[in-house]
């Protein structure tokens, strides 16, 4: 086990705030904005992404209101097109991709590997500034008039036909991409080179495995997005370019390049969530993850195969039938490692000692929603079927089950799980459980009707639509309102807990990974002395019949 047996840490581990910790080590604005402490940078990211999440959610709310009636009567079609572009761009690049990696990853990874910081702290701060700069550029593009291309920027619409601020939007994403690359680079080096003595690869918590896989994708896929958006912008500026059919260029080449990044990006959005699930499910069933090695390798397999499936976004784009077949078969294969993970998580519950605190509720919700999202992914990988459901609400429903049902749920679970460590305060448990439940209900009501509507043929990105789809849009909007409440609730009680929440113990969940051996909140340099790891991850003690832990030395 770890130097300090986690379950021997007294529940009241010293008064919080009495000792110096990373939060009270400097109160000036500069001490935050110029910090190189990974924990503070994590919090800077948290504040930033919540802001972006609010913007993107607002755009979604307006869209859902518009879609209450079949006629496009609330906003103009141009406005609607800008709304879904804002929603997509901001959600994907300024919330989902950074969410778990930059907030929880930044905070937890160095603590989990037993290091004093990430490998390159200054680069880490630079990464946040690049992220903010990219964000400001995107906000600027939105404020001066918005962009109406959709987050996919398909050519030739984006290069030759759209009259909106495509270039500043793409430039913002370009800059934020460098932030992604630097973050991924930092995490890979930190996990590879800065692990505490004894923390071998196969003793690592699975969160580290999944973050490692995520970082690989961040580092290898993002540059392709950068060059693709660069070429697109250049073509727009020059009025002539390589994606333009008038010159003999091929608009479909843009799609290939775009999805070469954007499909792996989906795994950037889900792998970290899977890491959180593994941590939480082991902790709240007091058991080692079933098939640890298989779950670890599944993360790597997803990252690798995920690079080879991008063409499944293009089954109806007139790419060759045989290319399509290769992409289709690989898409079926990439589903297998995800399935392995779900099976192993379920098996972990067997003979465990399960309790239902908020993080666990979110994680169980994740497994349910991710399973549905994953299985409907097979519908889209099946070529003959994809022809019909491509670019309909079926696709919308599918990827929201993965990204919102999966990633956002996991992010909430992870945030609740590490909240005591981050802030030194406990969130109110009952309210947390309520919010998790409301979110699960609201989410399903919002997005399940969209599967049915999609198979009926409702195309995506439609501002107005035929009447027969209305019932499903009404259900969806109703669900979205519930979902909105479920998102607001945690914001309120998290802020409340900062001031009035119960003081958190060093290890309130009695988990086994290294971050819990530090006080809550951790001191500035994390560990007074370098921890030594002697046991694999999740070495929970044996359980008695009632689910209580048996301590040999008790």
């Amino acid at each position, binding site marked *: 086990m770890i130097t300090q047996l986690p379950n021997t840490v007294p529940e009241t581990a010293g008064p919080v705030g009495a000792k110096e910790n990373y939060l009270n080590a400097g109160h000036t604005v500069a001490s935050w904005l110029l910090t190189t402490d990974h924990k503070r940078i994590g919090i800077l990211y948290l504040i930033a992404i919540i802001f972006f999440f609010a913007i993107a959610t607002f755009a979604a709310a307006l869209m859902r209101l518009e879609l209450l009636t079949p006629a496009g009567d609330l906003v103009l*079609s141009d406005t609607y*097109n800008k709304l879904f572009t804002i929603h997509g761009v901001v959600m994907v690049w300024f919330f989902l991709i950074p969410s778990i990696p930059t907030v929880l990853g930044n905070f937890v990874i160095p603590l989990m590997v037993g290091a004093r910081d990430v490998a390159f702290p200054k680069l880490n701060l630079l990464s946040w500034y690049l992220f903010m700069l990219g964000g400001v550029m995107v906000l600027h593009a939105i404020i001066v008039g918005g962009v109406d291309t959709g987050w996919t920027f*398909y050519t*030739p*619409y984006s290069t*030759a*036909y759209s009259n909106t601020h495509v270039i500043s939007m793409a430039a913002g994403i370009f800059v934020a991409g460098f932030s992604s690359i630097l973050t991924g680079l930092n995490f890979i080096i930190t996990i590879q080179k800065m692990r505490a003595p004894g923390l071998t690869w196969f003793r690592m918590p699975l969160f580290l495995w999944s973050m490692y896989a995520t970082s690989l994708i961040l580092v290898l896929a993002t540059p392709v997005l950068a060059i693709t958006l660069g070429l697109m912008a250049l073509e727009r500026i020059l009025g002539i370019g390589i994606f333009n*059919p*008038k010159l*003999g260029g*091929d*608009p479909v080449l843009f799609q290939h390049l775009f999805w070469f990044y954007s499909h792996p990006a989906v795994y950037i959005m889900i792998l970290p969530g899977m890491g959180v699930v593994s941590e939480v499910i082991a902790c709240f069933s*007091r058991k080692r993850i*079933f*098939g640890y090695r298989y779950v670890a390798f599944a993360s790597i397999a997803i990252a690798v195969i995920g690079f080879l499936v991008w063409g499944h976004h293009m089954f*109806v*784009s*007139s790419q060759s*039938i045989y290319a399509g077949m290769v992409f*289709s*078969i690989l898409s*079926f*294969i990439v*589903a*297998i490692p995800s*399935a*392995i993970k*779900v099976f192993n998580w*379920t098996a972990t*519950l*067997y*003979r*465990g000692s399960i*309790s239902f605190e908020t993080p666990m509720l979110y994680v*169980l919700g994740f*497994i349910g929603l991710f*399973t549905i999202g994953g*299985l409907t992914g097979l*519908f889209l*990988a*099946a*070529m*003959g*079927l*994809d*022809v*019909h459901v491509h*670019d309909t609400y079926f696709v919308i429903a599918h990827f929201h089950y993965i990204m919102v049902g999966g990633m956002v749920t996991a992010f909430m679970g992870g945030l609740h799980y590490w909240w005591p460590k981050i802030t030194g305060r406990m969130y109110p448990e009952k309210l947390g459980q309520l919010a998790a439940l409301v979110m699960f209900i609201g989410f399903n009501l919002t997005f399940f009707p969209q599967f049915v509507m999609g*198979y*009926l*043929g409702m*195309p*995506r*990105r*439609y501002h107005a*639509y035929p009447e027969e789809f209305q*019932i499903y849009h009404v259900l969806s909007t109703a669900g979205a309102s519930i979902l909105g409440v479920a998102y607001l609730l945690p914001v309120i009680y998290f802020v409340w807990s900062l001031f009035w929440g119960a003081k958190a113990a060093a290890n309130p969940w009695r988990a086994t990974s290294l971050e819990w051996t530090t006080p809550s909140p951790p001191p500035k340099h994390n560990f007074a002395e370098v921890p030594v790891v002697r046991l694999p991850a999740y070495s929970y003690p*044996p359980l008695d019949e*009632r*689910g209580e832990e048996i301590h040999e030395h008790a």
Partner: protein
Amino acid sequence: MKLPLFPEQASTIAEQVDRLYFVLTGTSLFFVLLIFVPMTIFLFKYRRGKKADRSAVRMATTRIEIVWTVIPLFLAMGIFAWAAHVYFDIQVPPPDALEINVVGKQWMWKLQHQTGQREINELHVPVGRTVKLTLASEDVIHSFFVPAFRVKQDVVPGRFVTLWFQPTEVGEYHLFCAEYCGTEHSRMIGKVHVLPADEYQTWLNRGNPEETMAQSGGRLFRNLGCSGCHVGQGPVRAPPLEGLYGKLVPLQNQQFVRADEAYLRDSILLPLLQVRAGYEPLMPTFQGRITEEELFQIIAYLKTLPNAPVEVRR
């Protein structure tokens, strides 16, 4: 408000796609149960404080992992093969189809039948007859989508794409543009009218166009000056086009290419790309000088040209 649960099934492909959909839904339900039933049982049985056997698990982990890797993999491969088969059927049009040309532009569908009738955002076809659409785009990418037929095809500018269906039910069906194409994307919709054979004939007769597509094409062929080089013994020697359609054409680089619609299109718009063996690369490009609709008409004309009696060389 209506509560439709399932789209109309109005083409031969629709049946195939729906069968796949139902089987996949069934398989998914099976897996959902396979995961959720044990999960629910565990959650109740092993919740903290409840009496249960919690002794350490001794299981052949590797064997279990192999089982739940290999079985889903085989299932997935089966579904892949089936879906790929359906996809082939969707992609490859059967011979002897009724041909209709479609041009997508912001934000309407313009269609023309071989007999010359034009339609905008409407398509009239006879029931039971195989229909093959050849589509082109004037500007951005559009996508021709008829949910009741379960077919969809992106119309990428700069090339021809095809789409086929065989309607099985008389009726009126939605036609959507499924690829986002700008401001009025959601207004780029229309109706497909599937008519009984006799009504279709009446509809055709009522249209009564001035000329067929091939006739329009022939007129363009002369007006644009194509005939100056390609017909007779002009000052410039250009390959004769009689009976060209469907034949193998020898190229300068010792290769052969089938003279299909795509080849004819490229030869008119990008004439230097595939130069015919034995001829100088002299033809000017017509890019920007003719619309996609005119291109369709010229090609329709070229397809009607009878075989030349004898191709005289030199």
